[in-house]
């Protein structure tokens, strides 16, 4: 279970999160949505302790992680896997080495076990045989798949996705959505997806949180989100700009 209570975070004079609270139950698949720059990724990074709030707290299985130092956080993060927007693969390593990295850091696996787990993870993301390639040789969709394989190879309890379909063509984006769904069902992990792709929300999430101007504007099931009559929510869901507002 992950819970954020009254999170406040600012960068310089800009307040990005202004008292945001949410609660995600074990095994749930949720989406965090909102306009670009509304603080979705900042919120996600707070949930895994990559950012510390100015005030408020984040609880992971009841443990407050917002006051922990980096070394204590490393232990908490073993429960998490995270797929970054850019996949964030280590470009000096091959695909295999990238996926094996967390297992080698653990130090409790033999090389044969590591090879087997890497192969298994590559098969789960439909990339068998890509192991010897370097990240620079991969397409955007393949990079995301490798990033996902690296995030799940050590069987975390919670997987966070930061805009997993951004920059991909609709067909590849759909395949990534189904991959996320497959990981969620097979590994029984808690899934948190930050996105502004409404098709992803429909495919993956059971519940949705919408951030607007630094605050939690909407919380509800995915069905409630798509049925909402609230002008801000419905305009976002349908992708319609406000005529009074200049949007670039």
């Amino acid at each position: 279970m992950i819970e954020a209570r009254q999170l406040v975070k600012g960068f310089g004079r800009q307040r990005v999160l202004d008292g945001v609270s949410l609660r995600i139950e074990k095994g749930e698949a949720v989406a965090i949505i909102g306009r670009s720059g509304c603080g979705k990724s900042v919120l996600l990074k707070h949930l895994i302790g990559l950012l510390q709030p100015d005030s408020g707290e984040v609880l992971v299985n009841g443990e407050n992680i917002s006051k922990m130092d980096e070394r204590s956080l490393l232990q908490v993060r073993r429960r998490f896997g995270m797929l970054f927007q850019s996949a964030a693969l280590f470009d000096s390593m091959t695909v295999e080495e990238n996926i094996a990295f967390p297992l080698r850091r653990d130090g409790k696996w033999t090389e044969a076990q590591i090879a087997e787990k890497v192969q298994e993870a590559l098969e789960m993301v439909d990339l068998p045989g890509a192991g010897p390639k370097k990240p620079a040789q991969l397409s955007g969709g393949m990079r995301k798949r490798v990033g996902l394989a690296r995030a799940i190879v050590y069987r975390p309890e919670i997987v966070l996705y930061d805009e997993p379909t951004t920059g991909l063509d609709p067909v590849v984006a759909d395949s990534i959505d189904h991959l996320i769904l497959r990981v969620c069902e097979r590994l029984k992990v808690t899934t948190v997806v930050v996105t502004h792709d409404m098709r992803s929300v429909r495919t993956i999430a059971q519940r949705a949180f919408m951030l607007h101007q630094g605050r939690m504007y909407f919380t509800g099931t995915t069905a409630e989100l798509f049925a909402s009559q609230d002008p801000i929510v419905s305009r976002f869901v349908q992708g319609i700009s406000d005529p009074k507002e200049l949007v670039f």
Partner: protein
Amino acid sequence: MYEAARRWVNDALEGLGNIGLLAVEIVRSLFTVRVNSRDIINQIYFIGVKSLSVVLITGAFTGMVLCAQTAFQFHKVKMDTATLAVVSVSMCAELGPVLSALMVAGRVGAAMAAELGTMRVTEQIDALRTLAAHPVDYLVVPRILGTLAALPLLTGMSITIGIAAGMFVAVFLMDIDPVYSWYNMLKHTGLSDVLQGLIKSVFFGGIISLVGCYKGLTCGEGAEGVGRATTESVVIASIGILVSNFFLTLTLTRLLEHL
């Protein structure tokens, strides 16, 4: 004007404080986390072997020009055979360590800042953190240890080649007697001079790697941020080397004078 000066001092003090905190984290990591020896060897190879040609060329031509200039001046007062002694002491205590460190700062310090900076802007450092790896343990400590091991070796080689090149100039181009030159060199160059150079190189190695890693880990966004971090790492490390060299000379000369 006053406001700009105040901001500059604030930034400088904040930077020094943060480098201090990074140094504390490095020491903590050294005592609590087992470093992968392969990572250190890779760093020694990159820092040491790959910098060898640059450092040797610098050392050789510095020894040669120092010898030629000293010989021209000493010839006027009929002290030609003391030329090599000046070259030797200067190369051991000052020029060998300082010039090697400046060359390594330009090559390795910049590379560290650029590599870690790129990793930061492409979220690879955040990815490391999510995979339960502390960036200081995995990225900084091997680079620090690699530089601390490689720079004294490079300095030793630079000193040796500088003296050898000076000897070549003295004997073959300046027609100075090799036997007296060699005798005077050994008479005036002490163990303290060699030790001073090697101890300095350890300090300089620490400055280069610490500044390079700090600038990389804290670099700004985008290509501009990486470029600025790279430039700043070279400038700050070079100034750090030159300023600390003065204080190290004063301190080490007193500490090592009885050797």
